[in-house]
């Protein structure tokens, strides 16, 4: 100290200016070290995807439509669902039942958007057939949705596929129509194929158990009637038609009969609540003029001079729930009545004809036993659709066909000595839903998903404050009066513009759609745009406040203590 010259400062090189003038930004402060929890972009699965039995990336194609990328949306849709024009019309759309938007206002009309995309695909020239890259061949029995789905996916995987169809008509692929396996072609002849997918459907109408019905032409299986109509037949049913049953077949029968100029009454032994038919079908049937008689079961026929005049019905009431969970109908003693009719169409369910299957293929309760990928007890036989134990819907059939295609591919590759590991079934599923073909084949996901977690996002994980309500576009219907004379489509769906607007109602649950709210609300400017359109969090500056996660409208940001 004593040596120092205190009349002047040491020349330390610090260059302290005369005033507090800034020379640098706050970027020198690693304020990110304050945090004890940090955000991570993690896309999740939208509930529609998880709820779709087909395994369609619904959220994905909605995202693409939202970006104006219609063709890519259609490509992504058909990638997972070979027949969107059909499912867009007939599927009971459980996707809409699980749509988070219902918690905000109304579910997105997913079916209508799918239908639009499906029609767009149909209107375009068909794509070239997939290249045959595999030597193996697969026989598919049945050209219903399960069979065609399986055949389609297998074809895309490069296999040779032959579809056997018992009926005279079907649609698509290498097809042998009017060829019933077990009759026209013996089962043993299928040995030439490396695998067989059994999906003949359920075509044997259950016995109506109406006493005295045998041999009466006026009492017909509904399924047979529908086939006739579908083939162009216009049978004379008389003035009054009774349809027995509460499922989709019953609704189809009722509405078809209506178009043949009959007054139609549906007889169902339980109440509207227990009806297995798609509610919309029931609604439309009612709108068209179909009458319903609930809690009534046919027990006998009324004859007058040997001529059929109607049926005797037992009045029922609901008792204890049965194994399906629905309340069992119980007869009310002595309460019997008659209903006049010219024709009775029975539609109380269908059984499968599995008589052609060899014994090694085990069945239980008339259904083929299969694992999650459709493999029966006797590989290389796989099965799907109505012949296995699952809900009988087009969507479930399509999904089963897709799973079986994966199962068959895996089986054949293993057999060919390829180094294959167990199929990562959970990872292939959308959340807990059906599998993704795109994921199985490791194709590039057109949706820029950030560190996706295969977990369905709940409404509670989202932030509804950033959404506003917008009414759902409802399908356009034909006027009910015209319906009775027309077998054509009654539901015209949505216009292109409406469908796009409907797609824009999609909340993109769980998937970042680059809305940039995280960026706007980050108090620390720690989030920046990456060149690829995603975002980057600069952990040097993120203080872990969690506003990005809290304000993310779609639950695509997660706070975690991992890595702190």
């Amino acid at each position, binding site marked *: 100290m004593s040596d120092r010259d205190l009349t002047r400062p040491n020349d330390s090189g610090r260059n302290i*200016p005369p*005033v507090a003038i800034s020379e640098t930004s706050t970027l020198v402060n690693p304020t990110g070290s304050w945090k004890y929890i940090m955000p991570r972009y993690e896309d999740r699965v939208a509930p529609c995807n998880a709820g779709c039995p087909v395994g369609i990336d619904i959220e994905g194609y909605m995202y693409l439509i939202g970006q104006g990328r219609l063709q890519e949306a259609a490509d992504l849709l058909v990638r997972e669902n070979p027949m969107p024009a059909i499912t867009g019309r007939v599927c009971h759309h459980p996707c809409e039942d699980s749509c988070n938007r219902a918690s905000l206002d109304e579910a997105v009309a997913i079916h209508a958007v799918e239908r639009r995309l499906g029609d767009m695909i149909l209107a375009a020239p068909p794509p070239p057939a997939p290249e045959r890259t595999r030597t193996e061949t697969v026989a598919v029995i049945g050209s219903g949705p399960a069979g065609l789905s399986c055949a389609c996916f297998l074809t895309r995987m490069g296999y040779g596929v032959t579809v056997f169809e018992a009926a005279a008509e079907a649609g698509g692929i290498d097809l042998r129509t009017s060829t019933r396996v077990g009759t026209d072609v013996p089962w043993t002849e299928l040995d030439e194929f490396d695998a067989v997918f059994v999906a003949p459907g359920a075509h044997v109408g259950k016995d109506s158990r109406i006493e005295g019905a045998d041999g009466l032409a006026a009492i017909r299986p509904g399924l047979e009637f529908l086939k006739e109509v579908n083939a162009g037949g216009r049978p004379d049913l008389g003035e009054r038609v009774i349809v027995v049953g509460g499922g989709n077949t019953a609704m189809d029968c009722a509405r078809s009969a209506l178009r043949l100029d009959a007054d139609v009454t549906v007889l169902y032994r339980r109440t509207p609540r227990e009806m297995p038919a798609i509610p919309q079908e029931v609604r439309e049937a009612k709108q068209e003029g179909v009458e319903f008689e609930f809690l009534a079961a046919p027990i006998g026929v009324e004859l007058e001079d040997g001529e059929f005049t109607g049926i005797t019905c037992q009045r029922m009431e609901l008792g204890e729930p049965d194994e399906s969970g629905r309340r069992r109908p119980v007869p009310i003693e002595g309460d019997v009545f008659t209903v006049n009719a010219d024709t009775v169409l029975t539609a109380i369910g269908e059984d499968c004809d599995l008589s052609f299957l060899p014994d090694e293929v085990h069945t239980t309760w008339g259904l083929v036993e299969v694992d999650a990928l459709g493999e029966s007890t006797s590989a290389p036989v796989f099965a799907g659709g109505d012949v296995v134990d699952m809900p009988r819907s087009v969507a479930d059939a399509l999904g089963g066909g897709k799973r079986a295609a994966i199962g068959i591919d895996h089986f054949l590759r293993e057999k060919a000595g390829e180094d294959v590991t167990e199929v990562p079934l959970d990872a292939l599923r959308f959340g807990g839903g059906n599998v993704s073909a795109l994921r199985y084949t490791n194709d590039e996901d057109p949706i820029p998903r950030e560190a996706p977690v295969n977990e369905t996002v709940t409404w509670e994980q989202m932030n509804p404050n950033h959404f506003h309500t917008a009414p759902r576009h409802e399908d356009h219907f034909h006027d009910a009066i015209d319906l009775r004379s027309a077998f054509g489509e009654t539901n015209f769906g949505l216009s292109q513009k409406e469908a796009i607007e409907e797609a824009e109602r999609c909340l993109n649950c769980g998937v970042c759609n680059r809305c940039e709210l995280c960026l706007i609300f980050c108090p620390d400017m720690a989030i920046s745009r990456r060149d690829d359109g995603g975002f980057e969090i600069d952990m040097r500056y993120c203080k872990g406040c969690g506003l990005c996660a809290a304000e993310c409208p779609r639950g695509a940001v997660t706070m975690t203590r991992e890595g702190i």
Partner: protein
Amino acid sequence: MKKVMIGNHAVSWGVLRSRVEVISAYPITPQTQIVEALSDMVADGSLPAQYIKVESEHSAMAACIGGSIAGTRTFTATSAQGLALMHEMLHWAAGGRLPVVMANVNRAMAPGWTIWTDQNDSLSQRDTGWIQLYCETNQEVFDTTIQSFKLAEKVNLPVMLVLDAFFLSHTSEPVDVTEQEEVDRFLPQREATFKMDTSDPHAFGALVRPDAYTEMRWHQQEAMREARDVFREIEDEWEAITGRRYGAVEAYRAEGADLLLVTSGTITSTSRHVVDERRAAGEKVGLIKVKMFRPFPTDELRGLLAGVDRVAVLDRNISPGHGGIFAEEIRSALYDVPPEDRPTLFGYILGLGGRDVTPGVINDIIDNTRSKAQPEREDLWVGVEL
């Protein structure tokens, strides 16, 4: 161009000639005429400045600070309570190294209410980091106003020029108003060292931690030290143009004096008269006028006062609990003078709250200073009647 004008208007004319760009002021007696005249000048377009008629002196100084950090030449004027209200912002201007110039018309502090002169208002701001220049005549006021801007802008420190209430502010004297072209040569447009500029954005005045605050204050002190030399150079330059100079310290008939009066402000003029009379009577009495109070002209005062037998410091101010402020500062300056050269210093408190300091009072002080071996106390109160 010679004009007869009051001291306040001499300030206004100095501001006009200095082409001040931003004026912000609030009225207070006895300063008000300065800003009234400026209002006229701005209104008639002779002074194309932005004039902000603020709601308080605090805001007046704040607005000047704003104008200054925007890079412009800024001016305000005040007195007494107004200056006290500005206190916080005086620090801000000085610490921010902003060359704001302010005229303070010395007015005693209330209570009780007073509008008359003494120096306690400006001297209370001693440690805010402002250069303080005390004027004696209206000509000096005019000249000093212009010089203040040059000084302030050269050393990046604010300057307070000070004049006595009424004795100068409201008293008419002839003033030679230097022509605009000459002033323009002397004082070109300000080029700020530090300013807000969107093409080169910086923050000013952020939190400074203990590791740098002292260094910044050291810079400030160096600027104060430099201001002494700069002021001399400025006076040289001004003298070359106008033939007038005043000095940070002026010695009047001090040669060979055994008794020197030390004064500031208008008391100096009265003292000159008394010194002339005493000299005429053969007494070796002289006068030292202190114009620059901050930075304190320690070396000049030491040089002038060392070896003189007696010094009488006339303080129109009081630091309660201590003494006259000039006297205390001079005592401190003389501490390093060898004892044999150190004068006996008498500190007189007088003229507070505008009380007249007449030749008679000054004569009494000279007589008292001669008659006593030592001052009885550090503060000698003149003419106090209880």
